[in-house]
């Protein structure tokens, strides 16, 4: 083994930084899933009847479904009866003031770099912190409500804004959509709700931070964002989990409704625990994210940096219903060791002059597998619609895999659809060139990877971009050449 390989191996063994477990008293229900469990979750959350009915319909539908097999993933059998479907930090479910918060819990978020004290907020980001199954704290609620913006936990929204929930729940992702969407619809526990009224430009970034803490539990959260006519919001989502030998299931749903002339920017830095270097443990991240550009001239941007999870199955998508709508999907997905990712997007063009752009940058290292899967569909009425897709893969070492599965269906002959793809490799000669200029192998790989991903990272809000760059650097393991 050359010195360079040795160094690379050392980099490989760098530990996942967020792998700690917090000692928080947790209330969990017993393992397993049946209608009684669903009723229990619903009653714990004191939900109105329409919610319970929705959950039960979803559950009954899910029972008739099979686990999807089409992804380029090797998913071990999941025993859905061996999972705890509800876990919450004990004591009060929602804190009025930070003084009431379990100090251990505060320390947890401090460690994660998520400030819950508003006075410590320098960057002007409002945070909804979700730990295991419940939201523990939402910051800046009052400031936002002055503008009529609703930003709260999903459970709270069900209590306080049932009309809005009933109107929009399942509109972008119906429970019949897929296996994990059905499961989520049956058992989801919490998440964030965000409503931007007509003509309002949200004055700060809204952000939800998800943390799995309890063991043997699944996390099933739900995010719903509604942007009324001519409004604007930028939304951030981050996530981490402790380091454990078991695999934990995370099956979330994100729904976004964008009305006439409104714009929503949704950025994710996904950093669930990816498993150790031998592929033991890690989160199964099976997520359904979809937005509807409902009104004319509405705009939806998905930006994601994916470095975590043992298995990622995720396709943030847009349905461009209105005329002159715009959608973007910008993604960097990094896999290392034994991580597997099958991720991409769907752009469904229905309105006239609708435009979509896809930029996907895959980075594969170690023995990982990284697939881009995308669908561009142009309906027969979507005259003059356009799509441009660019899918690049970067390989580190020769034991990883990169795959691209682009699907294109065009039913209107005035549409223009373009697809570009490249595959490249970080070479030993590039590393040596950097070394010779005084740059260490670690820094060289970080620099090359960040250069490669720059186009996407630049689309992230500032503080997230810095975080994402650092993540790419520390997530890099695997051999070169």
């Amino acid at each position, binding site marked *: 083994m050359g010195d360079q390989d040795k160094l690379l191996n050392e980099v490989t063994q760098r530990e996942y930084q967020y792998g700690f477990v917090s000692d928080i008293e947790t209330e969990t229900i017993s393992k397993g899933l049946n209608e009684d469990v669903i009723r229990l979750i619903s009653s714990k959350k004191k939900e109105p009847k329409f919610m319970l009915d929705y959950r039960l319909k979803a559950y009954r539908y899910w029972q008739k479904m099979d686990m999807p097999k089409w992804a380029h993933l090797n998913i071990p059998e999941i025993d859905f009866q061996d999972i705890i479907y509800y876990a919450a930090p004990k004591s009060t479910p929602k804190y009025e003031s930070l003084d009431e918060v379990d100090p251990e819990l505060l320390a947890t978020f401090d460690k994660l770099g998520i400030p819950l004290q508003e006075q410590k907020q320098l960057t002007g980001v409002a945070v909804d912190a979700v730990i295991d199954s419940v939201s523990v704290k939402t910051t800046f609620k009052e400031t936002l409500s002055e503008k009529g913006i609703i930003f709260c936990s999903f459970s709270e929204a069900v209590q306080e804004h049932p009309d809005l929930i009933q109107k929009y729940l399942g509109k972008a992702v119906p429970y019949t959509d897929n296996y994990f969407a059905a499961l989520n619809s049956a058992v989801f526990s919490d998440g964030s709700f965000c409503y931007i009224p007509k003509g309002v430009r949200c004055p700060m970034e809204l952000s939800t931070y998800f943390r799995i803490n309890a063991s043997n539990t699944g996390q099933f959260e739900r995010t719903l964002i509604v942007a009324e006519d001519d409004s604007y919001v930028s939304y951030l989502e981050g996530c981490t989990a402790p380091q454990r030998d078991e695999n934990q299931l995370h099956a979330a749903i994100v729904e976004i409704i964008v009305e006439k002339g409104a714009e929503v920017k949704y950025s994710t830095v996904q950093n669930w625990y990816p498993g150790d270097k031998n592929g033991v443990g890690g989160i199964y991240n099976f997520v359904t994210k979809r937005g509807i550009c409902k009104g004319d001239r509405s705009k939806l941007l998905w930006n994601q940096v994916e470095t975590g999870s043992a298995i990622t199955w995720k396709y943030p998508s847009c349905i461009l219903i209105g005329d002159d709508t715009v959608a973007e999907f910008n993604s960097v997905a990094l896999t290392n060791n034994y991580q597997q990712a099958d991720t991409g997007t769907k752009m469904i063009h229905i309105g006239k002059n609708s435009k979509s752009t896809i930029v996907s940058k895959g980075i594969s290292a170690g023995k990982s597998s990284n697939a881009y899967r995308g669908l561009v569909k142009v309906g027969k009425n979507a005259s003059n619609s356009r799509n441009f897709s660019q899918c690049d893969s970067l390989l580190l070492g020769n034991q990883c895999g990169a795959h691209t599965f682009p699907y294109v269906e065009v039913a209107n002959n005035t549409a223009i659809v373009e697809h570009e793809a490249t595959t490249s490799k970080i070479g030993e000669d590039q590393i040596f060139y950097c070394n010779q*200029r005084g*740059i260490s192998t670690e820094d060289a790989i970080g620099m090359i990877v960040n250069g490669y991903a720059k186009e996407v990272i630049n689309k992230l809000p500032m503080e997230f971009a810095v975080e994402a760059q650092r993540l790419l650097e520390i997530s890099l393991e695997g051999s070169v050449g």
Partner: protein
Amino acid sequence: MLKIKDLRASVEGKQILNGLNLEVKPGEVHAIMGPNGAGKSTLANVLSGNDKYDIIGGSVDFGGNDLLDLSPENRSREGLFLSFQYPVEIPGVSMVNFLKTAVNEHRKYRNLPPLKAGDFLKMMREKKELVHIDSTLTNRSVNEGFSGGEKKKNEIFQMAMLQPKLSILDETDSGLDIDALRIVANGVNALKSKDNATIVVTHYQRLLDYIVPDYVHILYKGRIVKTAGKELALELEEKGYDWIKEEMGE
């Protein structure tokens, strides 16, 4: 500054250097010439720490350090610079970012704080002027889409930025037209001082018209077989390498 003793090295199991000795003092320019396969590039790569090459024996002292014991990046930080025969393209990484990282790593090694952005850009401007490099080159990704001549000029520009004690120019003249050759040579000469030294590895005498060596060494079969002043280069140009082979009794 540099003392190479009985250096033996191989690449892919084949021994290329067979007991090479060389001493370089500050202020000196050494030319190393020799036919194809003599070990010229191997010497440049071994000195800069390319791990494709295996050291079999011998020692190299560089300013009091055991050079062979240092990582490639620390050799660079100690002041050893290699102008690559084939500079490598790094797409997506801007020259500015690349050089800023490199310069600041060098500074960190000497316990100096990183340069402020303004100071760094000023330094870049000055060095660009010194080596007459087109200012647009530094706005691009490292060597990406550069012509052969641009790549070599860029090597000399990097040399100017890093201010090495010892520069090894590995066939910097290959692929250069006469104008580019002159620019590169002028750059090297402008950077010359009584404290630094240069090893010029080349096939041809023509570069030595511009970069005048104090010593010319002939490398043959992994060993230095002849050392003389600059006139040796002219003699080689005239007689070719067969003359050496004959002298070696082959």
